């Protein structure tokens, strides 16, 4: 697994003059640039939920009016995604209509890619995640999943930075993370039926299993990852932060949308549990949302982790 998170961005810029520069800046910044045909734009926006931003050109629509209409549609479908626009003359939003200014986050010009670099840092990678944290989370989670699903292979995709607030699976868990370097949540999401199939292999295909089994299993996996996260990255001394600040979490069931009260990008991992012989696989999505506090400069792994009692072994007193 690559330790450096990547971020998917939708590139809505057809200019051949800027294609090379855009490709270079994507490569340099771990951005995965996705191009799309105009007639598929809305369906791609709806299906590619793990996007981080839109790189838009003011001539993408063919006319100023058409481009404005597209930008407004993008914002209507995916309001959480920052839209960074390449302007022809000057890096400003001031001369645009109010309705368009409202949906764009920033502008740059093709002759000043350093400005685009700044905007990427500001709007996409605004939170820096230490490599040791990214690597450690994947290791912890893979170990927990391998322990719970002993007959399945566990793989982890390259982690991504995402902006969306969409609840895209059928069941999800949340648990707070508290330390002197972070405060936020871990969220796990998955589908119900594949996990029910795992739990009850004899269940007839057309029968509905007990969803509470899925709830309980997801809860326990969450608990095990949380415990390992605390043991590895938090430690007893720093387990409680001094801050008692909280913000409401808002879940909109109608739109399958969850807000943590911040625009901060989220760190996302996707694990696949698979049994190749049986042709079976299930995906588990894990997100870290450090919405209340984030101080990566204070992050450190617990150094004496090797001295801890091995998981599963009995320490007698």
């Amino acid at each position, binding site marked *: 697994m690559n330790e450096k998170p990547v971020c998917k961005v939708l590139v809505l810029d057809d200019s051949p003059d800027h294609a090379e520069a855009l490709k270079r800046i994507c490569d340099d910044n771990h951005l995965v640039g996705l191009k799309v045909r105009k007639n598929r734009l809305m369906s791609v926006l709806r299906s590619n939920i793990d996007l981080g931003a839109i790189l838009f050109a003011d001539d993408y629509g063919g006319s100023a009016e058409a481009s404005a209409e597209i930008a407004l549609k993008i914002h209507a479908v995916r309001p959480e995604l920052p839209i960074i626009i390449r302007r022809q003359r000057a890096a400003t939003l001031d001369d645009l209509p109010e309705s368009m200014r409202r949906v764009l986050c920033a502008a740059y010009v093709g002759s000043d890619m350093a400005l685009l670099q700044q905007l990427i840092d500001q709007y996409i990678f605004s939170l820096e995640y230490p490599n040791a944290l990214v690597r450690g989370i994947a290791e912890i989670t893979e170990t927990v999943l391998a322990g719970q699903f002993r007959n399945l292979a566990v793989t982890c995709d390259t982690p991504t930075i995402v902006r969306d607030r969409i609840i895209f699976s059928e069941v999800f868990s949340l648990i707070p993370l508290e330390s002197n370097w972070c405060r936020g949540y871990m969220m796990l999401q998955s589908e119900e039926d594949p996990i029910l199939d795992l739990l009850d292999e004899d269940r007839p295909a057309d029968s509905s299993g007990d969803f509470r089994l899925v709830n309980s299993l997801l809860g326990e996996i969450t608990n095990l990852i949380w415990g390992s996260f605390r043991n590895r990255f938090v430690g007893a001394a720093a387990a409680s932060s001094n801050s008692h600040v909280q913000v409401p979490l808002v879940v909109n069931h109608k739109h399958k949308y969850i807000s943590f009260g911040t625009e901060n990008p989220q760190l996302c991992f996707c694990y696949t549990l698979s049994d190749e012989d049986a042709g079976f696989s299930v995906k588990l999505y894990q997100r870290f949302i450090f919405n209340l506090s984030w101080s990566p400069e204070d992050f450190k792994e617990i150094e004496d982790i090797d001295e801890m009692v091995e998981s*599963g072994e009995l320490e007698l007193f």
Partner: protein
Amino acid sequence: MAKILVVDDSSTVRDEVAGFLKKHGLDVATAVDGKDGLAKVKADPGLKLVVCDVNMPNMDGLTMVEKVRGELGNAAINVIMLTTESSPAMKERGKAAGIKGWIVKPFKGEAVLETFRKLAG
């Protein structure tokens, strides 16, 4: 009469641990949190061993053990904590309450079966 009480708010863990112990011929009862566990310890003087989580709703596991020792005056029952927690401070609190051991989850039954048998005997 049950000899071992498994106390955990996760039905996944309760089923896993209780299922394993039953499969190996041990008598097992379960409780869903510390409050439930305390009531079951009080109601069943035949219990020999409690396998108990720490983080649970209503009453946490360490508080439950302290109440077993204090309120119920039961110093004889053996207690093993089975938890994701591994902080020295929590272990010290458990030791002060007279627990016999500490397991950091996940539960690996084969590794602890013989010890459980002795403590439940």
